[in-house]
């Protein structure tokens, strides 16, 4: 609904604890690479993913056959 601000969840009636109530950090400071917009688009690009479907299946089949010897 446009113009509606999200409201914080109501504070629950839970006992106080000595531990601090914390929220984990997000990973913005991580050195892990971010995909480019092109990479993200290619993940759902139909023609490319049809080709990847074949390749990944062959890769998995090779690994399955290697394990079944």
């Amino acid at each position: 609904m446009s113009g509606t601000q999200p409201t914080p969840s109501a504070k629950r009636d839970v006992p106080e604890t000595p531990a601090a109530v914390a929220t984990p950090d997000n990973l913005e400071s991580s050195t892990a690479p971010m995909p480019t917009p092109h990479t993200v688009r290619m993940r759902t690009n139909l023609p490319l993913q049809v080709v990847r479907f074949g390749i990944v299946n062959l890769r998995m089949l090779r690994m399955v056959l290697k394990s079944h010897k």
Partner: protein
Amino acid sequence: MARVVVLGAGISGHTAALHLRRMLDATHEVVVVSPKADWNWIPSNIWVGVGRMTASQVTFPLAPVYVKKGIDFRQAKAVALHPEGDGDQRRSSVDVVYTMAAREGETERIEYDYLINATGPKLNFAATPGLGPDGHTLSVCTAEHAELTADAFAEVIRKLEQGEHQTLVIGVGHGTCTCEGAAFEYTFNVEHELRMRGLRDRADVIYLTNEYELGDFGVGGMSFKQNGFVTTSQLWTESLFKERGVKALSRAHVQRVEEGRLHYETLDGEEGALDFDFAMLLPPFRGADLLAFDRKGDEITSDVFAPSGFLKVDANYTAKPFEEWRAEDWPRTYLTPKYPNLFGIGIAFAPPHPISRPRTSAKGTVISPAPPRTGMPSGLMGRQVARSIADMIQKGATTPTHTASMAEMGAACVASAGAGFRKGTAAAMTMFPVVPDYVKFPGYGRSLTDTTGEIGLAGHWIKHMLHLMFIYKAKGRPGWFLVPE
């Protein structure tokens, strides 16, 4: 005439039973003992948990399949083994308690010539006070749990649509859990569903894990080649977390859960609390808590089973530091050391040690993943043990003839990151071998050629294909045995 009893009808036990019936001639009996009436393709419970599938799409009744295949099905729970016989009765036997309505509570002693313990995990919610559907958190471990989770998720969506902020915590509920891959899958399926509905900015999605680094998955992480470099599953996984805005609390053990709040401890000894509106936390696993007795009737449970309740097999259980762990520590035949007719497969066998480096917090709490036994290795163990038993019965082999070491086999894992024929994605991973072997593969412990990972729509199609294939196989349809484990 020989009788083979299989305890458990999950991926491992059911696979073993079907192969046994196929390989043994009709004079030999195959008996399956399982407390549940239905078979469950557990990897798809993730999709039940977000409302994309129903429980009936991931389960089917076992009895008709076993009738068709000529397998004697007892819907019962095994409670005690008598591997040496009992008193004057020399034949090994197992005590069971029926769970089917018509015979509920009845006990029976079933004699056997060979027994495969494939009882899978006991979901140990009790290890963390307040954990589980009877407590304050949700689960996707069973199809029934997953449907309850889907209902709770639908309520979260309703609140988000009304403009409320919601905090969703997904992960593992104890420092010794396994199945981090399943928790990862559910996390990104939830994130995907929120994003598809335009609600993502109103929710915090937090992944809570006992892994030291993201991408560990209980297998010590992986290395694979990408774009001319050798990268790590840590970077690969963190990249997805960053991209999707999923926060992470790692190296964590959940101490207890109250209504809307969980308390945790991290490896550095810090304690904290986390408020949530929705929490799906997987429990740690134990073995099925079977007892064992010798022929005199004295209890020998601690000789036959590890303290975890898993069955001791042909593994090296000598306690040693991480630096001395070897691929050869892992079992190959899954035969117990003392009883030549007793096997343990799938999650039911006792691993020699974890795969990931073990870690303990400053306060002495173990916070590191237990080793996963995923679908492909479990199915392969079932098939190989079935082949060994068939050779022992029909060809007079005195020792198992087939092996299935996790240090000599690979695994294909497809971790869904969001469903949808056109918009879904999944991380399709292979690793070879499952248990790293730093002698055969110096440096990385695994083959860089056969250890791979990629994210895309193709992975989602593959996961759906595996869903259809393995349900077809498990129903024993024509040509089922051509589907590789």
